[in-house]
């Protein structure tokens, strides 16, 4: 039961209206072929959970350009004028979350926690509608866990079983999202035999990865 799939077959699993976590930070560590294939298949009404929407024409920006996205839960859209334009026009729902809080909410979702208590955002608009907890005189926001139907992640290397390692700053949200979605699709730069990644170098254990996509293979 190989996990290896074509990009096309993997993206066909994603229905319109799905919630997707997508790794990457300004395009670095965003799975490139999965982005192109989402556009090619013309998915609709997606909810995207990601650090940012990069720039027009780059990474997640391609999904925005193509009008596939209904809602974004993200920390930053300042580099994507198109995202801002659609938001102001009321055509795109944007939920802004502090970056560290977004990371912890995703991790909590993947770790079976209900959420975390963070000091970030207390007393700001980021606290609107949130519960607070006081511990030893300090106020914390209750930030709830978040999960997704799919995680689309990029990795440097996968072995045949889906053990993943990442390279430098293209790691970012990818290992967190691998924990927090029902179906995890990984797009590695290379796929190597089992045993080629030493146990301590595995950042995402194979049990979290459902599909490993290769570009151009005909399944």
């Amino acid at each position, binding site marked *: 039961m190989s996990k290896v799939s074509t990009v096309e077959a993997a993206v066909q699993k994603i229905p319109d209206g799905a919630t997707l976590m997508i790794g990457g*930070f*300004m*395009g*670095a*560590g965003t799975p490139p072929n999965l982005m192109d294939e989402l556009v090619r298949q013309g998915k609709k009404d997606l909810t995207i959970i990601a*650090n*940012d929407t*990069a*720039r027009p024409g*780059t990474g997640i920006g391609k999904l925005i350009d193509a009008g596939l996205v209904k809602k974004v839960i*993200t*920390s*930053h*859209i*300042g*580099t994507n004028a198109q995202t*801002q334009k659609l*938001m*102001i026009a009321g055509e795109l729902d*944007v939920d*802004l979350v*502090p*970056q*560290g*809080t*977004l*990371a*912890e909410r995703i*991790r909590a979702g993947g770790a079976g926690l209900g959420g975390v208590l*963070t*000091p*970030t*955002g*207390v*007393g*700001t*608009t*980021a606290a609107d509608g949130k519960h607070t907890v006081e511990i030893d005189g300090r106020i914390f926001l209750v930030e709830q866990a978040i999960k997704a139907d799919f995680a689309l992640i990029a990795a*440097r290397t996968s072995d045949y079983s889906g053990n993943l390692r*990442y*390279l*430098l*700053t*293209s*790691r*970012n*949200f*990818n*290992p*967190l999202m691998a924990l927090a979605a029902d179906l995890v699709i990984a797009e590695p730069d290379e796929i190597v035999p089992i045993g080629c990644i030493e146990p301590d170098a595995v*950042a995402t254990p194979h049990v979290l990865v459902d599909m490993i996509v290769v570009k151009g293979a005909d399944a």
Partner: protein
Amino acid sequence: MNEKEIIARRVAQELKHGDLVNLGIGLPTMVASYLPADSGISFQSENGIIGMSALPDPALAGTNLTDAGGMPIGAFPGACAFDSAMSFALIRGGHLDVTVLGGLQVDEGGQLANWMVPGKMVPGMGGAMDLVTGAKRVIVAMTHTAKGAAKIIKKCTLPLTSVRRVDLVVTEMAVIKPTEEGLVLLEIAPALTVDQVIAATEATLLMPKAPGVMNLAV
């Protein structure tokens, strides 16, 4: 020396050997240019690395090693990479010694607004709320005014980045320290008078002792 260079040079003097420092995108990033190579200072980029350097050669530009703006960077020997949860554990957990960020407004309470202008510009807070909440020291590096309007004001009118009082404000005109009593004018730029700084500032500036002159040596 232009405004930004003045600010960057002065901020650089605040960084000490052994510090872990985050520099915001834009003006704050210039600070690294005014530090000696053997400064013993480590720079963290919040997208997941400690030990970032300038890109050593344009031919090395790639997508696996970038700064928080997505621009290619390099790394020094001894650099370490990690995921976004670890990056913000370092930031929020008090392990980051200094963050240097830009600002839209700072008020008499020392509170910073730097992430949105309602109805005009909503870039999102990115890592700014975590950085201002969690860093041991928060230095705001910004121009003193914007198109002639004061940015150091009585009370922030823009949405706050954090309720935490920042530790220092460095502009091309002055160095100001927010305290419990209010904003203390510590230093003014060479060739400026105290009255000129006051005129460009809406907030009340306290002077428990006479302000010094900003040292801009590298």
